[in-house]
């Protein structure tokens, strides 16, 4: 097992591509996306009842390196500020295989 940072990002479906390209650009080892998430926050309610354009996405990724995490947060913050969303960071152990 290896200690790692577990990063969860929730954003509008419209920003998904941008965030994933960001993760790729920062050389994150991988990620998992759950497309059909709905939610409520400062900007009101968002569901996919009118199509995915109005739904959210849930992104889970991991990151071993503190500087990598810092880079992500730096790039992510203005997006979250502009269009809303959430980013949570917690600790986890990764099963090495």
């Amino acid at each position, binding site marked *: 097992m290896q200690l790692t940072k577990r990063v969860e990002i929730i954003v509008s479906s*419209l920003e998904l591509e941008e965030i994933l390209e960001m993760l790729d650009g920062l050389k994150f080892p991988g990620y998992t996306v759950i497309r059909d998430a709905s939610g409520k926050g400062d*900007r009101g309610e968002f569901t996919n009842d009118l199509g995915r354009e109005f*739904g959210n996405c849930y992104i889970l990724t991991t990151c071993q390196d503190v500087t990598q995490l810092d880079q992500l947060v730096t790039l992510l913050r*203005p997006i979250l500020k*502009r*269009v809303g969303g959430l980013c949570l960071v917690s600790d986890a152990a990764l099963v090495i295989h």
Partner: protein
Amino acid sequence: MDSGLILSNILNPPILFFFLGMLAVFCKSDLEIPAPLPKLFSLYLLVAIGFKGGYELLESGITQQVAGTLLASIVMASLVPIYTFFILRIRLDPPNAAAIAATYGSISAVTFITASSFLDQLHISYGGYMVAALALMESPAIIIGLILVRIFDAKDDKDDPDHPFAWGEVLREAFLNSSVLLLVGSVIIGMLSGPSGWHKLEPFTQGIFYGVLTFFLMDMGIIAAKRIRDLKKTGLFLIGFSVIVPLLNAVLGIVIAKLLGIGEGNGLLFAVLCASASYIAVPAAMRMTVPEANPSLYVSMALALTFPFNIIVGIPLYLELEKILGL
């Protein structure tokens, strides 16, 4: 006015199922059409009307009348957001005013489809090229809306080095969003594939069309009713706007149609295009490009008020107005 026209509009399966959907929400039933099924219906409807429009356009050819109508469509789709912006500025800040203005400058394909099926029922003819007008009226408002924000919103940090304003992004969003692309694509495919393609697709694009519309309107009823409580936050000014501006735009549309001399059916469809407001394509574009505006305002106005008003009262009313205005 002839209230029989409204009644004969209401006593149709699509409108009745729209009411059923609304009723389900009001009495807290668990009736729902889970995602992505509504997407299936809306993709289908766009393909079916685009294909039919393209095929009919091929049959009729592009006449001067057609060209005139298409030009008028672009003009109206650009003017409406500008004049409504200044009305909305009475009460709202630039981003919200621009987003709502863009919403009302653009169109609702389902309102158009409901109007054309109303015409079918009354055996009033209309041209396939109106689908091209529909396609052309979706995009301009998105661009005008953004220009308005850029000009009038002082707070908008125009030279933010981190987020230079991406015009390419906006143009793509305006002209290549899925509904424009699918509609334009289907029109062109309808023209290219000719009578043989048309006949082979007929049972699919025509046969079950009315049924799919019925199902989709049931879902729209559910969605619209869910947004009605948002109207409380909207305030009377915007509630009034959601009904009066469509009426005004319809009258404008009818007058223009009269000047163009395109006949009763096409005139109604043009009026309906002017009167309708977008609740998917434009709101999605605004969410990305004018994030300071509040989506629950423009979505709920277009969806919970203008859309039901148009399909229930507006369509027959505009037809009556055409008669009164002597078209």
